[in-house]
């Protein structure tokens, strides 16, 4: 039975698209049949992040409006045959699709895939409503910043009002050194406010920038902390019980040690 999961955040720029691309890739690496849908019509990005931009012929709006069949618009991933992308239209806007059409589309995809991940646009308007219309579950991505968490809280309320059940949470771009120094919200601070199920903590990681620009998922990079974090989240989504990574890096361990000596001397 397929699971339709929408990835959303409220605030823009917190990593929805990167999360969708990497979770989709990670789930496909485990052998699941996965479709990722870019619901950000007019500002499509998911194809770029996955390095599939130059293969787009038809898009989501073409399917909804009957100019293309579902199969024609689904683009196979470069490496993983189990992974497909449904790109957004770039020349239209959010009003090109209705929630009813999204429900219809996801129901068609349900027949052929194990997981359908929907990359939601930022905001709380029509685009967001389209993105959650067909969802069975919702995953909220936030960064440990007060503004992002505030928006995430608003989204939790809207998701609950839409009767999608309680969403789960990914805290993205944690900077261990800042948290250790008490200068950044910790995961606990975020959870204390949002009070929803945590399914992942992703450390801030420069390899994300390089892999995103190359159009490759970071989950292929075994040495990347963020890559490992996304793999862990994918395993949690499939029902595995994976412990959370410790949010410290070696540098900060040293710093804390030196900090301790420093304090003793004074």
């Amino acid at each position: 039975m397929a699971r339709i999961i929408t990835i959303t955040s409220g605030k823009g720029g917190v990593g929805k698209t990167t999360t969708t691309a990497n979770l989709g890739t990670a789930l496909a690496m485990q052998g699941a049949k996965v479709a990722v849908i870019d619901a950000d019509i007019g500002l499509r990005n998911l194809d770029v992040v996955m390095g599939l931009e130059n293969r787009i012929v038809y898009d989501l709006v073409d399917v909804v409006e009957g100019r293309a069949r579902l199969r024609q618009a689904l683009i196979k991933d470069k490496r993983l045959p189990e992974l497909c992308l449904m790109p957004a239209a770039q020349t239209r806007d959010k009003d090109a699709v209705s929630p009813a059409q999204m429900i219809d589309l996801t129901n068609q995809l349900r027949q052929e895939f194990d997981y359908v991940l929907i990359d939601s646009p930022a905001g709380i308007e029509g685009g967001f409503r389209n993105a959650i219309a067909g969802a069975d579950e919702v995953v909220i991505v936030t960064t440990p910043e007060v503004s992002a968490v505030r928006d995430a809280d608003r989204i939790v309320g809207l998701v609950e009002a839409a009767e999608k059940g309680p969403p789960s949470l990914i805290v993205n771009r944690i900077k261990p050194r800042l948290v250790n120094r008490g200068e950044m919200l910790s995961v606990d601070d975020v959870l204390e406010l949002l009070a929803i199920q945590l399914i992942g903590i992703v450390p801030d990681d420069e390899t994300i920038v390089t892999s995103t620009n190359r159009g490759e998922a970071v989950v292929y990079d075994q040495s990347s902390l963020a890559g490992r974090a996304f793999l862990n989240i994918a395993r949690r989504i499939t029902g595995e019980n994976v412990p959370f990574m410790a949010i410290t890096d070696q540098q900060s361990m040293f710093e804390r040690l030196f900090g301790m000596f420093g304090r003793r001397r004074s």
Partner: protein
Amino acid sequence: MSDLISIKGGRDGLRLRLDDAVDWQVLREALSQQLAQKSGFFVGARLMLEIGDRTLSDVQMATLLEIMQQHGVQVESVGATARESRDAARASGLTARPLPRYPEPAVPTAANEHDGMLVTRTLRSGQVLRHHGNITLIGDMNPGAELIAGGSVVVWGRLRGLVHAGALGNAEAVVCALELRPTQLRIAEQITRAPDGAGRNGPETARIEGGQIVVEPWEGSKRG
């Protein structure tokens, strides 16, 4: 509160009931006056308007809506017994529903400030609870949420958004919470914001004393 206009809050939202016997001109003025006086309660509200047995023309309906809009109130639907009034409401783009010709026999038990509303959940950013009486919230209230009550507000949890008690003018109203950290706290006409930095821990009560909002830790034994 003027007898001509009564406010009632329920789970489905606010109801504003207009007297249906008094002269139209008088009613219009009373409404403007009420909305202006209780603006703290009404701004941003969406409500159901009940005009009872009165027959309103398209023009009169439009005037009514204009008065509401001037005060930041959005009318969601109109309830009326007269078909003409319902047609006028529809002409203004509202949903209209019929009211029973003889409304609840025990009319009109004016909504009173001792009425209460009990809500058990987390009140999140962007969510608003508005009631003419007292509000009790069992759960946390997050920043960006609003609680607006004609009476007092009790939060069995963390209070972290905007709270307005006594929003219809009652300066005796109080606000209490297990953790009182509002972004802004209003009682009747008084407005205050939490001091910067960490506040006290433990339950606290806010009330008006000597024309100012005063916040005190809750000490059960001191109060009878």
